[in-house]
């Protein structure tokens, strides 16, 4: 028995050595996802980006990923594991990985790190994000045009700047059509739990909302909308197959071009930590086809989309904060730093922001 074990161990060692030798020729790029790649939402889209990288670079790049990594202390182990496994560039794709990634990046100065949706940078740690809020402004306009009740239900995960920014952009869009538009907000304290999201959608519809918006990752809220004959918007992916009669459009993330560009830079040796934040203009965010909408509303949405692609920022003054105090003067445009750290609501949001 002992002999057999030794033989096995020796074989394993040879195999892993062989694997390591082979890995040196290829660039190993790795990803850490907060949800399962099969969520058909946020993590799914990042993984589509990873697959685009594989397709683009073929034999030159090898990829690996860890899915379902919990935010917090667990994440640190995940990053460290990838770093020790020979990854040369590691993408952390969720806000909650920030501190873990900062720590691990400091430990492994030769490895390149990128963190999505956060704000902490380092010598070998870049940040990237997509301007989802641009899409949220567009759906805000659609919601205000289409809602008979003048009330939308908004399902949200955690009170982080990304989410707060989304709510505010949505409301700015809605208010540009109907200044009295109301939003009911429910926090489910989870990025991904179809059951909880469905329950929240039902509660919001029961309380009079007739349009559902979500900043969580599953298709469940749209399915509830479809069952009730009401409407909503897809999140991260085009979710039309789940709600052919209910989805107006979806804010689709497209990470592929960014990942290809950055990994290309690593291969060329020109990678530097950067702060990249791209939106509709660059194609990092795009709107799924407008469906179930009257022509004029769809046309207006396309017009807004074009305006944003032309460089207009939805966070352009005058905008007041929730308590009525002035935030942006007439014509003043919010700077990225304020947006990325956003921890306040704008006027007209009837909810207390959890702190």
């Amino acid at each position: 028995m002992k002999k057999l074990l030794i033989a096995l161990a020796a074989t394993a060692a040879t195999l892993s050595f062989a694997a390591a030798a082979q890995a040196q020729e290829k660039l190993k790029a790795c990803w850490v996802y907060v949800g399962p790649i099969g969520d058909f939402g946020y993590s799914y889209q990042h993984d589509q980006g990873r697959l685009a990288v594989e397709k683009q670079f073929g034999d030159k790049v090898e990829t690996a990923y860890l899915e379902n990594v919990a935010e917090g202390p667990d994440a640190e182990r995940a990053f460290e594991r990838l770093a020790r496994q020979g990854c040369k560039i590691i993408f952390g794709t969720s806000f909650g990985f920030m501190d873990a990634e900062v720590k691990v990046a400091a430990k492994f100065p030769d490895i390149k790190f990128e963190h999505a949706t956060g704000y902490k940078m380092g010598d070998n740690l870049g940040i990237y994000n997509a301007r989802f809020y641009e899409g949220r402004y567009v759906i805000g306009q659609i919601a205000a045009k289409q809602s008979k009740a003048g009330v939308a239900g908004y399902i949200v995960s955690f009170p982080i700047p990304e989410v707060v920014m989304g709510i505010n952009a949505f409301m700015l869009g809605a208010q540009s059509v109907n200044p009295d538009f109301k939003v009911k907000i429910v926090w489910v304290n989870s990025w991904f739990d179809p059951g909880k999201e469905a329950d929240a959608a039902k509660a919001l519809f029961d309380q009079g909302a007739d349009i559902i918006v979500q900043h969580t990752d599953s298709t469940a809220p749209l399915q509830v909308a479809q069952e009730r004959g009401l409407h909503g918007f897809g999140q991260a992916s085009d979710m039309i197959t789940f709600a052919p009669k209910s989805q107006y459009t979806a804010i689709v993330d497209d990470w592929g071009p960014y990942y290809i560009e950055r990994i290309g830079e690593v291969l060329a040796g020109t990678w530097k930590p950067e702060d990249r934040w791209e939106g509709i203009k660059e194609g990092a965010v795009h709107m799924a086809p407008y469906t179930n909408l009257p022509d004029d509303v769809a046309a207006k949405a396309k017009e807004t989309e074009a305006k944003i692609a032309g460089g207009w920022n939805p966070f352009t003054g005058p905008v007041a904060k929730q308590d009525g105090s002035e935030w942006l003067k007439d014509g003043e445009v919010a700077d990225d730093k304020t947006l990325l750290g956003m921890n306040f609501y704008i006027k007209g949001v009837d909810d207390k922001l959890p702190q």
Partner: protein
Amino acid sequence: MDITVNILMTIATAATPLLIAAIGELVVERSGVLNLGVEGMMVMGTIGGFGAAYLTGNPWIGLFAGIALGALFSLLFAVMTLSLATNQVATGLSLTILGLGLSGMMGTNFVGLPGERLPNLYIPVLTDIPVIGRLLFGQDPIFYLSIVLVIAVAWFLFRTRTGLTLRSIGDSHTSAHALGIQVIRYRYLAVIFGGACAGLAGAHLSLVYTPQWVENMTAGRGWIALALVVFASWRPLRVLAGAYIFGAVWIGQLHAQAFGIPVPSQFLSSLPYLATIVVLVLISRNKRLTMMNTPASLGQPFVPDR
């Protein structure tokens, strides 16, 4: 009035999977076996239910596939812990991990496809009665099954001879063995029953609750079911109460948020857990009774001496 009915029906939908998984685990634990793999068996039921319903277009076939897959998966646990006498805690945990991974792999091709939904019951006239019609005669079929299951399990455990035997095995497998009872056979059946229930609970998720397949869609419900069994001190009707308190407080807090009640949402989200524990601890506060209900040989491996 309509909104009240809607809320009550939402609560029933939220409580049903917890209830079914917990009632199955209750029988397993009453036989003296601790199966921490509920989450894993449940998620197998979810993928089994979705997959079979999608491929055949018939959600009823999905329902049976979910039950069968859950039971089959629990058989793995039974062979390991009962025939090979492995550590139940470790085996149960690995069952969960294996189930989550395996279901994700099996489901790769089902991601992004809308599923088949089990239709709600509809009896002409009866379902159309205002208010109580939909509550009593308009729910999904698994809801009715869950209520029948609770009553049947309560009756079986406390009103039948076989139930008594099962409980005696849970209390002292050595004594039961000495009396000539086939401990291992009983436990096999209990574990498989628990697996079938977990599979059914999982199938409820992908056939009723949210008709779709995504990895990890059980999202910890198996663990809540496990906790319910303990806090309900192994009593079927208390499991029923616990599942519905959990569901009611969960849905209630969502409505409180939508209504705009100025209480921190983090607190509201933790409320279902707090409320369920507090209530169940209060009704189980008689220490002697609780001791009596706790299966004394829970989690201990049994190897019959030959």
